């Protein structure tokens, strides 16, 4: 059902897409926008926004907040992208296995998904990331494992919905192999579902990863990362609140923009 409230989204979608483009530029070409490297200037310390040469001021190490935020884009978004991608790959493989073959594989995979789904994701991720003491990519791996059951279920039910349709029956009569039917015939027909979920996964991954980095997990001290910047900037809240407020806004606005675009896709595709 299309809810009327979302019908008037396009302006929001346009603004969100434009913002995401900007984020993409920051991600791919950080040098373009943040020309000066992250120069540490402890004698300067945290100066408030509007100081000469520093539009948004500096953090307690004297680093330019705007540059730091632009640099942080990479760390903030590469992980979520990897999470969404990894989780979709696992979802596609296990989901289509379960959906297509049914029976024992379906039972095993579905029970696995049920049980993983009932676990508190963020709590486990925090405990796992902090205990394993690993770097950024360990957190990403943990998150992929915890996110994948959503995609497994999604792909499974989408495959089941397709598998009894006439075009699949004809493909079976033509004796096409299973991998071919799945890859060439079924996947294109469920691609829109996967795309939407990919977007929502990025948004959720952004929240999860920045939560971890806010707690100091997954990123080294001093790294440019929005979560980390927010945590570090909290100490200088009185001197230059912009240090952490900018990072907070960056996280919030990016997460909203990704969700808006994802919702928009989802509406477009479910109607048509």
């Amino acid at each position, binding site marked *: 059902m299309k809810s009327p409230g979302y019908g008037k989204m396009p302006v929001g979608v346009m603004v969100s897409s434009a913002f995401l483009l900007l984020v993409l530029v920051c991600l791919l070409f950080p040098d373009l926008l943040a020309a000066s490297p992250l120069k540490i200037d402890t004698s300067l310390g945290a100066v408030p926004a509007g100081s000469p040469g520093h539009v948004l001021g500096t953090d307690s190490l004297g680093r330019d907040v705007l540059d730091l935020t632009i640099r942080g884009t990479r760390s903030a978004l590469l992980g979520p992208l990897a999470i969404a991608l990894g989780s979709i790959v696992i979802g596609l493989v296990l989901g289509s296995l379960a959906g297509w073959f049914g029976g024992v594989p379906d039972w095993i995979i579905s029970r696995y998904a049920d049980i993983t789904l009932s676990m508190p994701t963020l709590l486990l991720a925090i405990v796992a990331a902090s205990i394993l003491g690993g770097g950024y990519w360990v957190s990403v791996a943990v998150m992929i494992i915890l996110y994948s059951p959503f995609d497994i279920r999604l792909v499974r039910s989408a495959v089941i919905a397709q598998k009894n349709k006439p075009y699949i029956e004809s493909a079976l009569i033509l004796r096409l192999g299973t991998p071919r039917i799945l890859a060439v015939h079924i996947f294109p027909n469920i691609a829109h579902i996967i795309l939407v979920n990919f977007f929502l996964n990025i*948004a959720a991954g*952004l929240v999860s990863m920045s939560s971890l980095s806010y707690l100091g997990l997954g990123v080294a001290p001093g790294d440019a990362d929005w979560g980390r910047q927010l945590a570090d900037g909290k100490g200088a809240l009185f001197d230059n609140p912009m240090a952490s407020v900018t990072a907070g806004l960056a*996280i*919030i606005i990016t997460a909203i923009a990704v969700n*808006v675009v994802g919702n928009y896709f989802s509406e477009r595709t479910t109607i048509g």
Partner: protein
Amino acid sequence: MKRAAGYIAKRILELIVSLVLLSFVIFSLLYIAPGDPARQLVGTKKATPELLARIRESYGLDDPFFVQYKRWIEGVLHFDFGKSIRTDQTVIEYVAPHASVTLQLVVMALVLSVIFGLMLGIVAAKSRGTKRDNVINTLALVGTSAPSFAVALLFLYVFALKFGWFPIYGIGNGSFGDSLRHLALPSIVLTFGVSALIVKITRSALLTEDSKDYTTFMRARAVLPARITFVQLKNVSAPVLTSTGLVLANLVAGTILVESVFSIPGLGNLLASSVTFHDVPVVQFIALALAFIVCASSALVDILVFLIDPLSGKARSIHKISTAGEKNR
């Protein structure tokens, strides 16, 4: 009745399996964790090999994995979680005061979320397509997308620092009124994030009811709008209850981060600091306790939903509405 018993039994079995698995995951994570617990136990004393060996022996640190796991589980089943490495108190004694702070915060946020979530959800559904509906939808979108700690920081900056309406951090002098004042802003932050789920689900469930025959019939009979809404609400209690269960799960995760922003000495902060200190028994206990609350409440909600509406295997499909929110519970 037989079906109900069967469903409840199945759901409880599922809960037990998840809990056993969780306990295993939590235990093995801490087992393979880098860092030597014996060294932490020595503390500031000089770590002679003999001392280390004695500690390893008395804590059974050299036993095989499954022996240690079995010992731990046996303790857990008798509510014996060992002693904190940091303070030498029993874990329960040590954690209890922190838990009460978190409990206060979570209960406040839960009550606020249910009240505001239901109210805004009803208002949005009843005034759909209007400006009011759009505003509520936008707020709900922001609430579900934005991470709690970032919202917490913004609220801290605006409402506590700029306007000075709330204290900035801590829980005050310990009196009930003062801690209420200190926990107000954190619980508002939590509410902002999690009530959005209730708003969305209430709204879309009510809109579905609006197009059903019984609503049309009631309208035709000129039944008061408030009365129609009341009947509709009764009919959507299953999905709304499910969303409340999700809210509780989200709150547990959210509180870890929000406590950290506001420097509230609750379970979340204790978990974070115990992890840094490698205080294994405390980390195990908090992780297990929080996981238990999340899993048990979701099982309880599923069972309640089934009892309210045995025909709905829909309890699960509701999850879809909130994928983004649920992943970060």
